[in-house]
């Protein structure tokens, strides 16, 4: 077998290991899924009337669902990497990591296994949350098959970018508690983006923060693809953010992993 196919095989083995962990200990995965679902229900049924009144002047809960769901989906993508950071940190403190490092396996298989497993979990999470959204009345407006595909592609790309960042955070954290804290921004950033309310509705001094952070163009793009609002330059911006974050996370993680372990 060639070097590349061995590398692919090692990554697949590590992916299987991570999926096995997720299957044996589903509590972390479920915990992460629960948050966006609870927020979705909370914002639609409790705050829905008020929020929609704030957006277009008339209280219409079902219109707000349309606005909110792309943001909630993004939040689902943002929540999973927190779990990834924690499990990477925990994995690094395990004795088995020393074994992996002294075996003739593809050097980055351990990390790639985590990333693939996490992206897969994220996609499944997005599908579950999306199903809940549809069940409580979310409908896309005239999205074509291509737009659905683009939305799915963007979801995977965002998940990939955030997961590589999360792996870096996990490698840089000395313990699971620190990893959880360090991954917090990934979870909080959607709150200060256009996920729940438009940027225009925020206080003036705060608008630049919301406007120039990665989640806002990503959410606006997703919203455009699913409910037909204007995308404008947000599409390219979203893809650029994702690629930049993915590259940053990848090279950072690789450098951290190649250091001598403690």
């Amino acid at each position, binding site marked *: *077998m060639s070097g590349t196919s*061995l590398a692919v*095989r*090692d990554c697949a*083995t590590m992916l*299987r*290991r991570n999926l*096995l*962990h997720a299957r*044996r*200990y589903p509590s972390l995965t479920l915990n992460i899924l629960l948050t966006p679902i609870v927020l979705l229900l909370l914002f639609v049924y409790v705050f829905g009337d008020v929020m929609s009144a704030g957006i277009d002047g008339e209280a219409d809960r079902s219109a707000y669902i349309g606005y909110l769901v792309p943001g909630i989906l993004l939040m689902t993508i943002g929540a999973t990497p927190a779990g990834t950071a924690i499990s990477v940190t925990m994995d690094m403190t*395990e*004795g*088995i990591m*020393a*074994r*992996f*490092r*002294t*075996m*003739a*396996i593809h050097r980055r298989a351990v990390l790639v296994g985590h990333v693939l497993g996490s992206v897969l979990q994220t996609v499944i999470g997005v599908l579950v949350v999306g199903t809940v959204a549809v069940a409580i009345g979310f409908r896309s407006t005239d999205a074509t098959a291509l737009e659905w595909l683009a939305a799915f592609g963007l979801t995977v790309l965002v998940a990939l970018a955030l997961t590589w960042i999360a792996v870096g955070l996990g490698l840089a954290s000395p313990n699971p508690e620190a990893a959880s804290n360090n991954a917090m921004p990934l979870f909080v950033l959607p709150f200060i983006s256009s996920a729940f309310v438009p940027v225009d509705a925020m206080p003036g001094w705060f608008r630049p923060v919301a406007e120039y952070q990665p989640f806002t163009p990503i959410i606006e793009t997703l919203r455009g693809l699913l409910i037909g609002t204007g995308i404008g330059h947000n599409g390219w911006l979203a893809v650029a953010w994702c690629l930049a974050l993915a590259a940053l996370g990848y090279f950072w993680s690789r450098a951290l992993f190649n250091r*001598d*372990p403690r």
Partner: protein
Amino acid sequence: MTTTTAPVPFAITAKGLRKSFGDKTVLDGIDLAVPTGTVFSLLGPNGAGKTTAVRILSTLITADGGHLSVGGHDLAVDPQAVRSTIGVTGQFSAVDGLITGEENMLLMADLHHLPRREGRRVTAELLERFDLVAAARKPASTYSGGMTRRLDLAMTLVGAPRIIFLDEPTTGLDPRSRHTMWGIVRELVADGVTVFLTTQYLDEADELADRIAVLSEGRIAATGSSDELKRLVPGGHVRLRFADPAAYRSAVAALRDVTTDDEALAVRIPSDGTQRELRSVLDRLDSAGIEADALTVHTPDLDDVFFALTGGTDQPVPAEEAVR
């Protein structure tokens, strides 16, 4: 199969191995040469640098200096080639606690790129050999210390490594598990595997190792076979103990070249422990009319070597006093 055609005469060589963490020098220029197919033991007290040496030689961390070769591959040039010839069982268990023992074994088989059927066969065989069949379907985190250590070693053996590093393989194990582990190491050596063993137990090194290096404060204090090391220190003697202080005093007066212990009423006569020497000692006692209440023959053991070579500032009592 006790002999194998060795590709290289030395499985492991190190010249001038150095490593420091911050300003603390852990290994200060170490030279080692382990002939292929032998057991080499690195012996030393806690904090002597044994684990650091294993971590470097097994490619886990990088050395600060020195020329290192494992399995004929230069460690600095081709660590991946080194990894394909070695197996490591560390001091801290290297098993995945979240999955079962069997899954751990199959994971190793996959990472060694064994075909599926071959992987299952090797797994079943090793689980059987290491007495883990009953626990195979239980999460590894539920295993006892001895079971974890056996699983750990079984996982190391999946890839049939020719050089195995065992870092304190029996630390914390009960006597039975310890003897099981020794038996396993002997089987490995019988198959021609080279074993690099670190231990803080002198009897373990004595029991298993062909050659022993005593590591003290980052340097090799002495190296040789167990017997060679024992010859380095004096300490062989016959010890006579008396119940009656008067008999003790007359014995001290009658014998020359002896060490006395007034408190224990004991006399030590230097002796190499041979039958001839012992007879001459007894003859001397008879001719002087001395009758001791107890007589013990003491030959130097690795404890004496160890304390003599590792500075022994915290040496509590001479080893044989602790026993009697």
